[in-house]
């Protein structure tokens, strides 16, 4: 935690405006994290509100133990999401429509957009099949762009454990995608020979057969 943030957190215990500054600083990250865990805007907004309300209620008892303030917020968000999943466990169907629609923001051709939406939907379905801690790791790593150390602080694990978990998560995700019907991933060189194209997501198995 930087000194200025530490001072801001201390001030937020008695000064509502300081809490407002912390909110402005973290609301997007917390919202994004929750959004990927629940897959829709409505619940993401509800849980984001609950997370900050809990933070406000308990900030007086917050003690800096050497981990960033954001780790504390992520833990509150994680608990809110876990409670939400428990409450909705009887209705496991979660729409991915919102998430998939997001990728149609790009200005590509309609065919490309459809293809990308399908890829994204498959990926998100596969991620959703993973255990909770692996989903959490992928979201924190790829959307929040946190280091292994920061993720370890949030998840209460060592940096080495996060490294190992990331490896196992990729293996599990690959298996899930294969079960979804996607054959494999492969790097291909572009035809013009300048640079390798970053990625080609191979077609469905039945098409490849």
């Amino acid at each position: 935690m930087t000194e200025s943030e530490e001072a801001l957190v201390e001030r937020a215990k008695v000064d509502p405006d300081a809490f407002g500054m912390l909110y402005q600083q973290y609301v997007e990250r917390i919202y994004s994290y929750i959004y990927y865990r629940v897959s829709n805007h409505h619940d993401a907004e509800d849980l984001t509100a609950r997370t900050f309300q809990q933070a406000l209620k308990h900030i007086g008892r917050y003690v800096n133990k050497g981990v960033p303030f954001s780790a504390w917020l992520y833990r509150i968000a994680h608990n809110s999401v876990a409670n939400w999943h428990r409450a909705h466990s009887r209705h496991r169907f979660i729409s991915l429509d919102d998430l998939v629609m997001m990728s149609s923001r790009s200005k590509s051709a309609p065919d490309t957009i459809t293809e990308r939406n399908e890829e994204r939907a498959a990926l998100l379905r596969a991620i959703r099949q993973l255990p909770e801690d692996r989903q959490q790791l992928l979201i924190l790593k790829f959307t929040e762009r946190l280091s292994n150390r920061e993720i370890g602080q949030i998840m209460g694990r060592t940096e080495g454990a996060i490294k190992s978990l990331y490896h196992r998560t990729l293996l599990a995700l690959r298996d899930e995608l294969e079960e979804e019907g996607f054959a494999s991933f492969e790097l291909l060189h572009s035809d013009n020979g300048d640079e390798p194209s970053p990625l080609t997501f191979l077609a469905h198995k039945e098409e490849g057969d």
Partner: protein
Amino acid sequence: MNYFKEAVDLLPQTWQRIVYGTRAIARKQHVDDILTDHVGALIDGTHASKLYLDRYPDERVLASLLPLAEHVNEHLYPVAPTAGFRNRLLNDLMRQAHAQHERGNPSLWTEKRKEIIIGATITSVISAVGVLAYFMHILPFNRRPTSTG
């Protein structure tokens, strides 16, 4: 004697397992490190999967995991809340924060009053039962009559 011979026979096999296990662990850690480096580069905006594959041709698992990491990186991006939601929530929080500030930060007693009372009641009952049991044990009416001869 037979047990000793069997144990001696098992030694090479056991040793092989230890060596194989150690190598497997070291190799897994090596792949862990490569994947961590790779995702760090991805997050920094460098698509270097081909470079990593060329550098570590023996690690066949990378051929599927590195492009997969690129795929995840491409499709998982931060999502922002709407401005309307942000402002609404900020206003709500500010109102709550001012109200909380006026009341003063809730003490542990205020927040956990119910739990504290239940805990104290249970502890008191257990203590009372303990004291009662002790007195019943030592008081004369609970003793067996002794023969006076």
